[in-house]
């Protein structure tokens, strides 16, 4: 069985799965139960001067029968006293010495950072995470994402903390920024030992249309909150991969954002994360989800001949290229398996209205649209394809006109019914190469 343990900038953890700094890591009792369930580490709910929270404070987007596709909150950092939290951290570390306990911190002045770091390290934490991400409440007070959005300030505060810290310092980044590389590289320059991202995305989750108040509702008003959960995963992965690809970023990354199962985690790791952090999925289903994360990741590594998580870290990075380096000659077309098709014809709607008008129904040839690459008629297959389930409702593809966009395969509800089949392999003809060779002008441009 593969070795799941990791070493994150000197912080050791029996597996890469950490609780993100959020309600699931709010107290010692919770963190200990999480460790019992299998979690490898926990980033404690952000410590600082305790605040007062509002009620209510969470909202969610449901989609097509699934609850909590996206989640948002207007909660702030811990509302519990520092001494209570530190006492519990001490207790947890005593009972679970091999697990990673990281204190998330947020405060204002240099002196406050010094005191906070000292007291946390005295309590025995394995590392520190600077919360430069909270997009509501704290940023108006000059903390959280207001620091994360100012690379200079972020670098300066990171440097202060490095003066005081004996344990590794992770900088948690906000996604509410033009280019994630700016704060990421500033953190590296400030001396950070690791990066965590993403924190939540500024959002309005919904509007109560009867009361005319955004949600979550606090009396008769609300405010923007932070978005997280499955919906933010693609954004988070892009940001993680941007940093992981950059040569200036030589420190490990803790990936966060919409991770719900081992597959999500493996994708983050393949894009360069060393550990992953989870909040929403735990809030939705509880600590128990880590069982499948551990089991699934370990099976995956075994099946793919990898003996440790380390071997997966960043594996998909070389597969990432700039657009200009993608092969322009590679071609795929859609193939419909008549025997799997149920005849919903969603592919027809998608292709006619949302793509390239190359999927048709019925036994007759079809006039191609005027903008087609091959003018004339599309030939229906003879004899017409009949499905075992859908009969003559099985659509057919005008293959020469299919641009291989994937849309039909994406909307088809039946797994494996539409596959995208390679018709020509990579040719090495890329946009960048065309530019080099002066072949970058396609006929029909502005100056003709």
């Amino acid at each position, binding site marked *: 069985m593969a070795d799941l343990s990791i070493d994150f900038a000197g912080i050791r953890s029996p597996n890469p799965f950490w609780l993100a700094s959020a309600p699931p890591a709010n107290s010692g009792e919770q963190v200990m139960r999480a460790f019992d369930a299998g979690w490898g580490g926990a980033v404690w709910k952000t410590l600082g001067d305790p605040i007062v929270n509002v009620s209510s404070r969470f909202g969610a987007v449901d989609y097509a*029968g699934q609850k909590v596709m996206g989640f948002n909150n207007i909660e702030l950092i811990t509302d519990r006293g520092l001494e209570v939290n530190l006492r519990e951290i001490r207790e947890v570390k005593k009972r679970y010495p091999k697990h990673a306990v990281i204190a998330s911190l947020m405060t204002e002045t240099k002196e406050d950072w010094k005191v906070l770091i000292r007291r946390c390290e005295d309590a025995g934490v394995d590392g520190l995470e600077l919360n430069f991400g909270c997009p509501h409440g704290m940023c108006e007070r000059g903390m959280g994402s207001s620091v994360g959005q100012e690379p200079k300030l972020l670098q300066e505060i990171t440097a202060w903390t490095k003066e005081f810290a004996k344990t590794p310092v992770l900088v948690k980044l906000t996604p509410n920024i033009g280019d994630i590389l700016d704060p990421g590289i500033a953190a590296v320059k400030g001396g950070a030992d690791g990066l965590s991202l993403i924190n939540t995305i500024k959002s309005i989750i919904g509007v109560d249309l009867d009361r005319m108040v955004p949600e979550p509702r606090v009396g008769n008003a609300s405010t923007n909150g932070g978005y997280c959960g499955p919906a933010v995963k693609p954004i988070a992965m892009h940001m993680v991969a941007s940093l992981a690809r950059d040569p200036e970023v030589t420190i490990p990354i803790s990936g966060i954002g919409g991770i719900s199962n081992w597959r999500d985690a493996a994708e983050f790791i393949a894009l360069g994360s060393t550990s992953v952090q989870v909040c929403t999925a735990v809030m939705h289903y509880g600590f128990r989800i880590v069982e499948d994360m551990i089991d699934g990741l370990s099976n995956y590594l075994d099946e793919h001949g990898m003996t440790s998580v380390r071997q997966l870290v960043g594996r998909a990075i070389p597969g990432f290229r700039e657009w200009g380096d993608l092969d322009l000659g590679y071609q795929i077309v859609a193939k419909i398996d008549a025997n799997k098709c*149920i005849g*919903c*014809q969603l592919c027809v709607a998608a292709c006619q209205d949302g793509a390239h008008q190359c999927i048709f129904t019925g036994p007759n040839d079809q006039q191609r649209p005027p903008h087609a690459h091959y003018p004339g008629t599309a030939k229906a297959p003879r004899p017409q394809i009949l499905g075992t389930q859908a009969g003559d409702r099985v659509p057919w593809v005008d293959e020469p006109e299919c641009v291989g966009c994937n849309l039909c395969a994406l909307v088809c509800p*039946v797994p494996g019914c539409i596959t995208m089949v390679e018709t020509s392999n990579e040719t090495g003809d890329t946009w960048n190469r065309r530019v080099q060779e002066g072949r970058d002008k396609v006929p029909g441009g502005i100056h003709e």
Partner: protein
Amino acid sequence: MKSVLPQQRDELELKDKKPLYSAAEAKAEADRCLYCQDAPCIKACPTEIDIPTFIKKIATDNVRGSAKTIFEQNLLGYSCARVCPVEVLCVGACVYNAWHREPIQIGRLQRYATEKATQPGKPPLFTSAPPSGKKVALIGAGPASLACAGYLALQGHAAVIFEKRPYAGGLNTTGIAPYKLHAEDSLHEVEWVQSLGVEVKTGMELGKDIFGKDLLRDYDAVYLGVGLGEDTKLRIPGEEGDGIYGATAWIEAMKLTPTAGRKLGRVLVVGGGNTAIDVARECALLGATEVTMVYRRDAASMSGYHHEMEGARKEGVRLVTRATPVAFERDAQGKLTGLKVAVDGTEQVLPCDMVALAIGQSKMHAIAAEFPGVELDARGCIVADPTNGATGNAKVFSGGDCINGGKEVVNAVADGRNTARYLEQSWK
């Protein structure tokens, strides 16, 4: 209108087989619909309701919009949702069947949307056009006339329905199995149609209280939605006397008259159509000691729906096939004791306390006679163009059971709607 119905009726003992969805159930089901392109369910609906659209509107909590989508094509979408044989119509065509998965419960979703949106106190769904000056008289307050009148009223035309019975709604009120639709729910729908501007005059029979020549003089068009007539008889010995009922007459009494406190003993139902199956199921559910259907051919030739027969069997209904009734038997006091049938060349007596005859309904020749030019075909049905209801008299239109010989509520609605559209078109 509701208060007119007796409080205690046998039909109320039979509860809804497909109760109203809760909001959560409706949404969960609606979310499953794939929103097919050129959806086969639409084509399978005789009124061609835009089913994927109305379902998606439920999924987005737009229940009013959903009901509007339904009513635009099928004004009686509420009763249709409850009485349509969806297994052979919309639901039977759902692509999920091809996938060997549970098809979308279109009827129940349609009921959810239409019932929610027409509850008393809800703002009206439609506003009628200003009066056009055109007037239409409609005979019979069944689904065909109600649909026709409702659509006419929405276009601003005056629509007056004349109904011979004390209750409007046609077979929706008097004939539909109670576990699908109770009489008060049918009347609720009638009230809703009236709220669109339709006038309903009950206790007015054509040929007795009103006459064709007067209607032709006073109205711009006349619509005949009179349905079928009385139950047909067997015309065999012993038929006169107690214990033998026409099926639709028996159902009407069970639905609309006060509970008689009568005990159903051993029941025989003669016939193999849907009315026969309905009456057999109803008797079984009302506690008859034994219910047997007597059919003259083999089971495969029965015109009743397979899914309905399955349901009847589950409720304990027995089936005797290849049996031709020969004579009824009675004791010295004249009380019914049995039915003698011929089975494969031999004769047997099936003992019974009650018999329901579900062997068809007669056609109404008297109606046609009221209007010059209106003709009947060999089956006794009014001859009308099925696309618009036009008859041999330019002012007279017809639809529903009286032109098709007895189909479903949804077919009658489609007919009524088509005539309303045709008239609207020709009056523009």
